[in-house]
């Protein structure tokens, strides 16, 4: 079985995001970019499936700017076998929407015929939480979202999902799309020898037109603004004072 892992290049989660003064978006020039944290977990899980003999090939795919090569090289250094880069934009500020990403991924799936697509649950830049579900819809496949545990047996996958009420376990028929949540595993670091080896692994370049997909956004960004800031508060010197302050403010 092949496992396909879509990985997105996003602003590093430790970077403090700055909204551009002219309201056209957030500043991404000279900012540290990394693989979306959820996608690292998905890559890790795919590699573990391969190590357990349940998968024979792990293919990482990224859609975006040319620089997403680096993200794919990271996936290859972690242990993915090969990579596909779909160059869909030249501007780092142009985000490709989940619907277009899902359509391109559906095209990749038709060519590669994986038994499993392991996506992240959400990209930490647009916070959409949509691509995996959309891909499953376009393919007519089953979906298991927000997964914290995955076990593959024959043509079914048993998935534990993190939901509002706690945990839900479901069985899905494969091929399936699974979106991974944070507690599924601890992704490994790529070792130096593996980083070197990754440079020689195949990385194929494609364009949206190869899959017949139009990436024109459906949602036009009217403006991007800073959220309302909270004003600095008051420090209490003791528990007694805090109790008085709380009572004084009428919150307890």
């Amino acid at each position, binding site marked *: 079985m092949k496992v396909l892992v879509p990985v997105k290049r996003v602003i590093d989660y430790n970077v403090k995001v700055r909204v551009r003064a002219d309201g056209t978006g957030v500043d991404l020039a000279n900012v540290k970019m990394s693989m979306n944290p959820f996608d690292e977990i998905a890559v890790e899980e795919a590699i573990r499936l391969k190590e357990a003999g349940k998968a024979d090939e792990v293919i990482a795919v990224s859609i975006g700017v040319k620089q997403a090569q680096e993200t794919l090289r990271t996936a290859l250094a972690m242990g993915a076998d090969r990579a596909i880069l779909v160059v869909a934009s030249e501007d780092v500020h142009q985000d490709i929407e989940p619907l277009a990403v899902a359509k391109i991924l559906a095209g990749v799936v038709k060519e590669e015929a994986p038994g499993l697509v392991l996506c992240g649950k959400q990209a930490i830049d647009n916070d959409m939480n949509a691509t995996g579900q959309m891909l499953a819809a376009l393919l007519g496949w089953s979906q298991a979202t927000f997964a914290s545990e995955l076990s593959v047996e024959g043509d079914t996958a048993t998935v534990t999902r993190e939901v509002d009420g706690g945990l839900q376990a479901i*069985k899905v028929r494969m091929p399936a799309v699974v979106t991974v949540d944070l507690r599924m595993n601890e992704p490994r670091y790529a070792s130096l020898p593996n980083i070197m080896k990754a440079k020689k692994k195949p990385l194929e370049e494609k364009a949206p037109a190869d899959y017949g997909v139009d990436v024109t956004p459906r*949602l036009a960004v009217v403006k991007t603004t800073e959220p309302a800031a909270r004003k600095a508060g008051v420090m209490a010197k003791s528990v007694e004072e805090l109790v008085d302050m709380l009572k004084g403010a009428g919150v307890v």
Partner: protein
Amino acid sequence: MAILLIAEVTDGQLGLDATAKAVSAVKSLGEVHVLCAGARAQEAGQQAATIQGVAKVLVAEDPALGHRLAEPTAALIVGLASGYSHVAAPATTDAKNVLPRVAALLDVMVISDVTGVIDADTFERPIYAGNAIQTVKSSDKVKVLTIRTAGFDAAPTGASALVEAVSGAQDAGLSQWVEDKVAKSGRPELTSAPVVVSGGRGIGSKENFAVVEALADKLGAAVGASRAAVDAGYAPNDWQVGQTGKVVAPNLYVALGISGAIQHLAGMKDSKFIVAINKDAEAPIFQVADFGLVADLFEAVPALTEKL
């Protein structure tokens, strides 16, 4: 045109608060029709009909809709969607599971976590863990949106809308429910509680969470946690507040032993009043707290619980 609002229905029970808040969010867009779907949904439908601003309730009862599995639920919604300008739902994990699937089947984008409705095509939503607010205008024929309910007031009840049965669930047998692991608690529900007390890594162990829970019980509060506390096994996953957990905006949020990472703030910084106790005076949580106390929580929290 009318709005198809998917109600939150769990095991036959209506999530009244989430649904009523979503009604408030969308009612300016047109007539609101609420869909209650499930293996049992009749009672939920009757209750949804009492929400003011709801013109009609559609009840879809079918065993295939039992555990809100994405595939049959999305098929049902797509079958009902024609004639509606908007398909919306409160941004629960159920809706986030199902609505993107619905949107793709309709060949439209989904607009996730809407915090503001500007007009029929234009919506506000947070991006980058709430560090920026984006206003987007949709050119799609149908708008599919999930509503982040924390910022909307629940529509009052007391109405009695028409309730109508619908069918159309198709189960292709793609997925199958196995079990729910749900911890029952007598405490208020996290996303609707007026007071939330949360603990972080500073709590140190599952046993120590009793300190958090004692204060919560004193305040009649729900209990929340940071991701670090959940990852460490101190608290269950459904207590997590933040970018990838629940979003809360209670009247009072108390953060204990939580540093205040942006991903945590994303889930609670719209609370009306924030109180933080942390032994580190430099902890970023103090930058958003209305009242702060630099102290060892194991001394301060029991004392606070006692004095309140």
